């Protein structure tokens, strides 16, 4: 900040600087406008939760897209056109997502990597559909997004909830050989959706009973009543849909009360924080999560780039977002433009190498070649099961 005394002095300086700047701009204007005509940047919008308590799920997507775009721009852009990033916060709220989407559309975004939460994505998709923009989400797992067939412009690089539930159920029935399962969820968008699929799949299997199907209130002071109920129901395993804070409370209470039945959960729990919070009680817990691709050279490179560029380990959905951005860039390149139909055609037909493997999209918009595996906590780390 300048002091009050130098105001006049600094003002003079200011004029000088401005004058020079204007002169410089005027001189270079013809050249600049000529260059701009050739390489009008392609704008990619990245909406998601960038503030608030869900920011930790949204920000890695911005970073992943930044890295992909930076690499592409350094290699000369898409057919000579540079790519520009537009970020917009939706705090995972449907009403804010609609605002963010219209803002992106009005500022000229030509393709979208995002929304992070299923609810926000659902709300924003209408806006994009009207504006004929293609959307790839790295993390919206709600099955109807693709399966309803309402959203031809929507693609995702993450497996949907029903695939995850299928895997959990198959694992519980075939590998663990249980016949009575308690299904618990956190009443949330993600957790309850997942639990409902698990319940449907369990009930469809012969000889299997769902002993209880109940939701717990996130943040409640105590879950002992639910835990007693699980015990009373004589369940042989628990499938839980939700995030790690509730999972660790339930597991802790179960183990402390001497219940040793298997606890199977989702990728909201396949998080190292869960192991740290639940401590010794986390041991033996199963969780589904994206297939381990840590040996893939592209994954190693993406993570190394992230560390070099941002100085820390990447966060949630980073690889999914990286793959989404790569798929989008590849499709724009192959389609030769951001034309809606051509882009969709390219996404469905042109496979691309990503950290998640060689992927393209099916008719509905789900990625082919992305799967889930079961992990188990063994000696304080998640280990992929066969």
């Amino acid at each position: 900040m300048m002091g009050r005394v130098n105001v006049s002095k600094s003002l003079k300086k200011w004029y000088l600087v401005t004058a020079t700047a204007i002169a410089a701009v005027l001189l270079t204007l013809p050249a600049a406008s000529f260059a701009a005509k050739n390489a009008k940047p392609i704008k990619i919008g990245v909406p998601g939760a960038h503030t608030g308590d869900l920011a930790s799920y949204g920000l890695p997507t911005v970073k992943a897209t930044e890295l992909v775009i930076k690499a592409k721009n350094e290699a000369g852009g898409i057919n000579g056109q540079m790519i520009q990033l537009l970020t917009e916060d939706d705090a995972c709220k449907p009403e804010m997502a609609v605002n963010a989407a219209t803002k992106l559309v009005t500022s000229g975004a030509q393709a979208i990597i995002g929304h992070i939460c299923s609810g926000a994505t659902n709300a924003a998709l209408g806006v994009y559909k009207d504006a004929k923009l293609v959307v790839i989400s790295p993390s919206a797992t709600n099955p109807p997004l693709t399966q309803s067939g309402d959203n031809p412009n929507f693609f995702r690089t993450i497996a949907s909830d029903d695939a995850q539930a299928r895997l959990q159920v198959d694992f519980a029935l075939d590998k663990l050989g249980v016949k009575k399962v308690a299904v618990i969820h956190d009443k949330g968008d993600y957790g309850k959706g997942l639990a409902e699929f698990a319940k449907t799949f369990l009930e469809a299997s012969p000889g299997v009973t769902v002993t209880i199907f109940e939701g717990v209130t996130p943040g409640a002071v105590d879950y002992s009543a639910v835990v007693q109920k699980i015990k009373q129901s004589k369940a042989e395993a628990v499938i839980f849909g939700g995030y790690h804070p509730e999972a660790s409370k339930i597991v802790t209470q179960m183990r402390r009360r001497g219940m040793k039945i298997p606890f199977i959960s989702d990728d909201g729990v396949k998080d190292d924080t869960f192991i740290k919070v639940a401590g010794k009680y986390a041991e033996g817990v199963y969780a589904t999560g994206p297939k381990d691709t840590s040996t893939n050279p592209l994954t190693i490179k993406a993570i190394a780039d992230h560390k070099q560029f941002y100085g820390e380990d990447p966060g949630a959905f980073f690889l999914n977002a990286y793959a989404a951005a790569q798929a989008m860039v590849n499709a724009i390149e192959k389609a030769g433009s951001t034309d809606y139909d051509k882009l969709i055609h390219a996404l469905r037909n042109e496979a691309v190498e990503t950290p998640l493997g060689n992927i393209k999209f099916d008719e509905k918009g789900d990625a082919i070649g992305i799967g889930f595996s079961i992990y188990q906590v063994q000696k304080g780390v998640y280990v992929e099961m066969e």
Partner: protein
Amino acid sequence: MRKFFTLAEMKKSLLMAVWFIFLTFPIMVVRVNPIYKVVEWRWQNLVLVGVSAFFLSFLWRYFLAYKKPAPAKSPLETSARKGKLSELQRHPAARRAGIFLAATLAVAFPYIFSTYQVNIMTTALIYVVLGLGLNIVVGLAGLLDLGYVAFYAVGAYSYALLNFHFGLSFWVCLPIGAAMAALFGIILGFPVLRLRGDYLAIVTLGFGEIIRLVLENWNEFSKGPSGIAGIPRPGIVGVEMSLNTSSIFLYFLMIGLALLTILVVTRLRNSRIGRAWIALREDEIACQAMGVDKTKTKLTAFALGATWAGMGGVIFAAKTTFINPASFTFLESAIILSIVVLGGMGSIIGVIASAFILILLPEYLRAFSEYRMLIFGAVLVIMMVFRPQGLISNVRQTYRFKGLQEENKEGDIK
């Protein structure tokens, strides 16, 4: 006025600074990560807290002393001590000019600014309607409602569900949503008729939570937490609208609804029932003694207040095209209540102004979005401390008896 930079004042501020350094030390300076067993010491925050506490405490005492000479003792006195803004409000020429300016701006707005701006303006207008609706219950009738968002949810879900199951259009659902909300207002009103102030507050809060929980848990009915998608935007029969035109259409629709709300609420306030509400707010017992039907008055307040929330909800559902229970939390009720209180309870212009401030400011201050809720909380406290009557305090209708001078002649003042 006292002097503010004396040694004694400095000492006071210094003491404050030390106190706040002590107070915020563990939370602001130390940050532990119990997972990795790392402690981070952020000494720079200590300096920050000290310096800002030192200066803010000056400001605090200055404004508090400034406020002291005329403490607001009762609502009657408050309105007697009119602010400049409320003075202006009564000036006919200024009023006409203001209305003309606002009208021009409102009509020109969607053609000057982008769809995005139109969209957030529509959101702000929805909150204007919500604020005015809650103003009936809290501002006029003095019934503290902490679950107002429930009626908003009822409106939104009425449209979403009726459209989903029976394909009813927006125009059919708008009155239905309003009626449903009014019905729920009465359902809530009945059990709480006997309750006073704070008991009423907790029961309405509970009611709001119950509605949200039912929407969350009863999948067969409301599709649960994953919400309802693909709700159509309003249109005119036979006209295909692009996103842009439909936003503008919704904007004008909302302007219309806001005007209607303003008109109706103004008329209501000066009507027989409106006066009954105000009387009820001021003194329940005196009000009953004057022969006002308490039951009817309270129920109409709940029902009429809820009606606007219902309409707001229908438009909200149409605007976002997707709703889920997460949009209807207690925080939303708190925000609407803040709009009413911040604007000045019972004051219509005040409520409109504060709705714009509270909803638009965060949108334009996206750079500060992390601090948004922190500032929001602080603003509520500061407003209450320094201006409990709100931004633009309500001007009580006053009547002058023309015949008063000739009282002696007429011999009758009533």
